[in-house]
């Protein structure tokens, strides 16, 4: 009996360590593979040049720029709405039912697969609003996708602002908006920044939703306005195009490496923001 218990215990311990080792091995395997294959494929020239069939050059500059543009515009739109929603939920709303409905829909948004965002984004932004397949349509689609991320992280950090701060300000005669502007929002800066970084991560990694909304353009636009009104592939979409549709693995490896570096940087930045900005308050 005791012997049996001992063996079961040892087996379970072994299984637990094995599972953890497996997770670690998968990550190391993925990163190792991408780095080993990507390092020889990547070069400064590849990063800074434009792909062209006529000139026979290869490059990933348009995709890098498109990704950057998408991050910028998406954050610009989603940030006020998301932070506003979180403030409403935490500071303004008094109707419990309404709060529950909003929180439920936020959860629902977070669970909808990106391919469905792609479909709806295509129907609404590209067709109904007549924006065509353009970076702008892609950004608007991404806005809806990243909304739950911003709301959730902001809300979490709003909850950590002590109630006494608000009561103190209220006692001094401050109005609600004044309190939100001068006390609540500055105190929850860490959550807002973290939310932005996580949303940027989502934009960098997204592909299925962008394939039909932002399209597969490979050109560098002359002006910012032109960039947003034209179809353009982000890095992730470009990786799919090169590897799956064109079978050009070298560029694929290079893009994968760039993506991994970006994602790791974003991950670290989010961690740093959570810690560094929290201590300030």
């Amino acid at each position, binding site marked *: 009996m005791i012997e049996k218990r001992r063996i079961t*215990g040892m087996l*379970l*311990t072994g*299984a*637990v*360590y*094995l*599972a*953890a080792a497996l*997770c*670690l091995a*998968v*990550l190391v395997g*993925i*990163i190792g*593979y*991408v780095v080993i294959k990507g390092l020889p494929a990547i070069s400064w020239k590849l990063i800074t040049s434009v792909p062209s069939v006529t000139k026979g050059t290869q490059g990933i500059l348009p995709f890098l720029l498109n990704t950057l543009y998408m991050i910028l515009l998406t954050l610009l739109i989603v940030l006020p709405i998301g*932070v*506003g*929603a979180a403030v409403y939920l935490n*500071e*303004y*709303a008094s109707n419990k039912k*309404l709060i529950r409905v*909003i929180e*439920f*829909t936020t959860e*629902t*948004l977070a*669970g*909808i*697969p990106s*391919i*469905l*965002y*792609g*479909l709806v984004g*295509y*129907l609404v932004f590209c067709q109904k609003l007549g924006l065509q397949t353009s970076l702008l349509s892609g950004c608007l689609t991404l806005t*809806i996708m990243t*909304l739950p991320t911003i709301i959730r992280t902001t809300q979490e950090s709003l909850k950590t602002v002590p109630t006494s701060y608000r009561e103190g300000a209220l006692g001094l*005669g401050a*109005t609600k*908006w004044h309190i939100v502007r001068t006390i609540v929002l500055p105190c929850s800066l860490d959550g807002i920044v973290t939310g932005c970084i996580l949303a940027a991560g989502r934009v960098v*990694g997204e*592909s*299925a939703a962008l394939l*039909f909304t932002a399209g597969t353009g490979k050109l560098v636009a002359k002006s910012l306005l032109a960039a947003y009104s034209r179809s353009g592939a982000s890095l*992730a979409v470009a990786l*799919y195009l090169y*590897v*799956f549709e064109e079978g050009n*693995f070298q560029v*694929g490896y290079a893009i*994968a490496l760039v*993506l991994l570096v970006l*994602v*790791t940087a*974003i*991950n670290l930045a989010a961690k740093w923001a959570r810690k560094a900005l929290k201590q300030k308050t």
Partner: protein
Amino acid sequence: MKQEAILTSGPQLGTKQAPERQVLLQKRSAGRVLKDAMEKIMNALFFACGMAAVACVLLITVYIFSAGLPAIRQIGLSDFLLGRVWKSTAAEPSYGILPFILTSVYGTVGACVIGVPVGVLTAVFLSKMAPPRLAAVVSAAVELLAGIPSVVYGLIGMLVLVPAVADVFRLSSGACLLAAILVLAVMILPSMISVAVTALNAVPPEYEQASLALGATPVETYFKVSLTAARSGIAAGIVLGIGRAVGEAMAVMMVAGNVANMPGIFTSVTFLTTAIAKEMSYASGLQRQALFSIGLVLFLFIMAINAVLNLVLKGGRDDD
């Protein structure tokens, strides 16, 4: 409050006082009106932001239904859902999506069969058994896994896993359901692990202490007491993983072969998600509408999974 009292009593007082004071009071009350208006505007603005998420969900629901229903009406619900043949580009097209539905179900179940044990065991490791430093390393690894874009999973699946599957099982092509299941199993790990770890961390230490005091070994305690106490959280993590597996498109598209076969472990298959992604770029007419209908089916699947998730979470709250 006090300010308000002064202001409301202002006009009456002002009649008896110097005109400068009256002007001052009028100025102040004008400021007050401005402030009130500002309050109201901000109130409405924040309310609008709050309703944005609700509006988005409504918008998505309305569009998915209105775009998805026409083709179903034209093809016929049973022919659409239970038809075994999908030939959207043939001269006499046939739109049966049973192969896609079954593939999505099998693929998800397969991914869970492999992913859930690894995920739960890793969660136990992170929450209970790991030395702190090792736990930090593994949990950082899990976070990074969550951040890796799905196309990168697809790339590695396509260039490493697919050839390996072909080699091991001596197939002419390794792009099959099995490869997709393996990729999905890895992709559902991070969300599952993080939810399960949170649930395990929330188990009251008294439970574990009592179990240890009764003579159970630590390992027995983790598996019989902690896991049982955290079961609703772990179930929520699994449901979250299921949702992710059902909705994944790009990675699966790159490894599953994308032929509309009835699912078999070594056959090239198409998932609900990949059926849409594959044909969307060139589809037109009824074919295109049928793709929106597939979207509708996928949407209903996800909504059902969400409902289960909510039920599981609620059930957990009642337990405590």
